[in-house]
């Protein structure tokens, strides 16, 4: 039952529609934002938003919230499961310190005013598991990005320059995995890891395939664009977590220069903080954020997200299996390795970011530098949950970006190494509330190609967050504590026109949609039919007809047809 809503007298910030702190009313009917004339004002439920900030629901475009990685993380870290957030009753039990259970993920996003979150790395062969888990997350809309960069089909088609076949394969795989877009993790490197190696530069040859990361990335961007997918290639770069890697990152970004798209970027580089290190070893490691920021600001076809570390507990989990092994050797912490047949792998290592540890403090500073130095129209706020820390601390990142005073206060408690190895202390820039809303709402929606998300224009999904913060009177540079507190729990979170959380308390459990992208009409699947049969016969542990996820198995699927 969808009620009509009349959100009255709120102070609206809606960057996509150019609205900056204007007092206005918002009307909701049947889960969408509508004109006043379409709502029977007498019937509508009135929400008094006087002196409150009204924005679109938050959009987390890169988090690890479902699938075998986070699940293995939970198994490996029983100590994470001692924090009880909610005892079962009207709502389900909600547990977890940083690694949350599925219900807890939905509930915590909802309480914070976030209404959409995308799983950023779905092992294709584990697609069913990923969707089962996504289906167990209440409150939010979601989707999953399958990983492509080490899949034997991709390596083979790129090596043979079989572009039509590559295009067909992308379409086939997105349909089979009910995936949303093309995620690429350490292209070629994870395949090399199967033999104990890695691909650290763009020109390292992938063992067994006559192909390099440079060719894989270029080929995938080309065919993602030819398929006309709503999201661009979403890349976790080679050489992650290595001093000096910022050069690899910039070199990688340059691969996108010959592509363009009117609606969005052609390459999204993710959790760039982990790929923005200068120096030659952990002894002289420094920030490469300024150079990366300079490049990203100079082009209009690349977006990034921060991958901001939060001091405290976290769990590193990526499809970048060789990096996870390096991290395990570096920290001596527990390690789990994953192998997903001929598709790639993953690793999981628990970590705690300590303010006094020079490297951790450096990482923390680099994330902030990226957020501050890059245009708010190009950098999305993320912690790469749970790699950099909990998404529940996004308000901390928001407040830090808006207040130099808060940064100065925080700098006092971190390792002094930050002062000489990064430029953070010298950055005077303070993001405005408008820019923060851009980085957490309108930009991630644009990056993902979701026209109905991230804004409050007519026709948009009625995903709305209302915060106890008056944009007309708040001094975000000085009242950072008030900013943090306000963003931590929304006054109202509205999802699809229904109030799901109020003043930090859950109101109603609802089930969001799972978006998936169908581009099969833009490619000829027949072209790869015999290849698929042959590869499944030879290399997979399961048969082709048993591979993949049917739409009917999902709780609330929404097919987005590309054409």
């Amino acid at each position: 039952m969808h009620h009509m809503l009349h959100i009255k007298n709120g102070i609206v910030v809606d960057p996509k529609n150019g609205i900056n702190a204007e007092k206005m009313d918002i009307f909701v009917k049947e889960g969408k934002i509508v004109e006043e004339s379409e709502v029977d004002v007498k019937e509508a439920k009135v929400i008094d938003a006087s002196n409150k900030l009204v924005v679109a629901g938050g959009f987390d475009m890169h988090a690890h919230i479902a699938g075998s990685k986070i699940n293995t993380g939970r198994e490996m870290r029983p100590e994470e499961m001692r924090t009880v957030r909610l005892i079962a009753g009207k709502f389900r039990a909600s547990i977890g310190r940083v690694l949350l259970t599925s219900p807890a993920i939905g509930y915590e996003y909802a309480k914070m005013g976030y209404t959409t979150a995308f799983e950023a790395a779905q092992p294709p062969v584990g697609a069913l598991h990923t969707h089962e888990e996504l289906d167990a997350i209440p409150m939010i809309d979601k989707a999953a990005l399958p990983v492509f960069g080490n899949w034997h089909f991709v390596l083979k088609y790129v090596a043979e320059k079989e572009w039509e076949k590559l295009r067909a394969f992308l379409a086939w795989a997105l349909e089979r995995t009910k995936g949303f877009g093309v995620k690429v993790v350490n292209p070629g490197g994870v395949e090399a890891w199967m033999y104990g190696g890695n691909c650290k530069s763009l020109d390292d040859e992938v063992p067994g395939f006559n192909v390099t990361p440079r060719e894989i990335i270029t080929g995938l961007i080309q065919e993602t664009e030819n398929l006309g997918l709503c999201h661009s290639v979403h890349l976790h770069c080679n050489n992650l977590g290595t001093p000096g890697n910022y050069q690899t990152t910039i070199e990688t970004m340059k691969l996108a220069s010959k592509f363009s798209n009117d609606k969005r970027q052609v390459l999204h580089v993710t959790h760039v903080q982990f790929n923005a290190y200068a120096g030659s070893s952990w002894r002289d490691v420094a920030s490469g954020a300024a150079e990366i920021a300079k490049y990203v600001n100079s082009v209009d076809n690349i977006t990034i997200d921060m991958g901001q570390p939060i001091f405290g507990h976290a769990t590193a989990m990526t499809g970048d299996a060789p990096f996870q092994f390096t991290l395990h050797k570096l920290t001596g912490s527990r390690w789990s390795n994953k192998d997903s047949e001929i598709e790639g792998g993953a690793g999981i290592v628990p970590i705690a970011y300590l303010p006094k540890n020079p490297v951790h403090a450096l990482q923390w500073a680099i994330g902030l530098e990226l957020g501050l130095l890059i245009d708010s129209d190009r950098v999305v706020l993320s912690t790469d949950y749970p790699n950099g820390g909990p998404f529940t601390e996004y308000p901390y990142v928001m407040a830090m970006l808006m207040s130099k005073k808060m940064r100065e206060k925080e700098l006092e408690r971190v390792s002094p190494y930050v002062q000489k190895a990064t430029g953070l202390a010298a950055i005077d820039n303070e993001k405005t509330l408008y820019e923060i809303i851009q980085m957490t709402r309108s930009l991630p929606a644009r990056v993902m190609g979701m026209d109905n998300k991230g804004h409050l224009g007519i026709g948009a999904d009625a995903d709305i967050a209302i915060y106890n913060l008056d944009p007309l009177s708040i001094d975000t540079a000085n009242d950072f504590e008030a900013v943090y507190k306000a963003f931590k729990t929304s006054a109202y979170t509205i999802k699809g026109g229904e109030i799901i959380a109020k003043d930090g308390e859950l109101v109603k459990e609802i089930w969001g949609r799972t978006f998936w992208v169908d581009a099969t009409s833009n490619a000829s699947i027949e072209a790869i039919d015999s290849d698929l049969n042959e590869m499944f016969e030879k290399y997979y542990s399961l048969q082709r007809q048993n591979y993949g996820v049917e739409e009917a198995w999902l709780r609330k699927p929404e097919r987005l047809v590309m054409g």
Partner: protein
Amino acid sequence: MLKLKPKIDFEVSVEAEITPQLATLSSDEISNFQVYYGKEKTKLGDLFEISKEGDDAKLVLDGDFSMVKWVGARMDDGEIVVKGDIGDHLGAYMTGGKIVVEGNALDWVGAEMKGGEIVVEGNARNYVGCAYWGDMTGMSGGKITIRGNVSNYIGEKMGGGEIEIFGNAGDFIGTEMKDGTITIHGSCGFVGGDMKGGVIKVKGSFEVVPGFKKVEDGFEGDVNVGGKGKITQF
């Protein structure tokens, strides 16, 4: 001194982080102290008969407390006497004071304790002085004495302090132990896997895992982790 007696036979477990400190509070505060009965929040006074004599930090638990968990957890001073059996997590994380159990205890006696003393006159079960799952260090100080028998996993990841068992023990004694002493007067199963340091003394029979080398007065290892732990018979 504060005396508690169960009002009913508990059907599900009670989680009550009660310490001797409780005895110094007013009768009202004691009665309203929050505990869980199963998943329901409730008050101490609803589950137990409370009688208070004086303000000294001493807790006497009279009756069957085998369904009551977390008694003495995080206590730092004072005394607890249990006149019957006690439930899981007795004295977990405790840093000081003394607990005496006249009956039997269950799992996790003195888990991750840092100081103080626990004496169990009867038997205990698994995980005496252990680290909780996922944590790096178990018991790191103080003393645990069990007069009866214990089961498996004793002093896992132990980083200091002393455990003395007068009866027999099961398998996995001092696994991943780093420091401290475990003494077993009876017999036990596998001892010392992945042990890095500390001493295990057994009077009866026991089994050494591969990875220990024979030295003059016993065994040293575990060589798999470059450990210098000692296992001796006395």
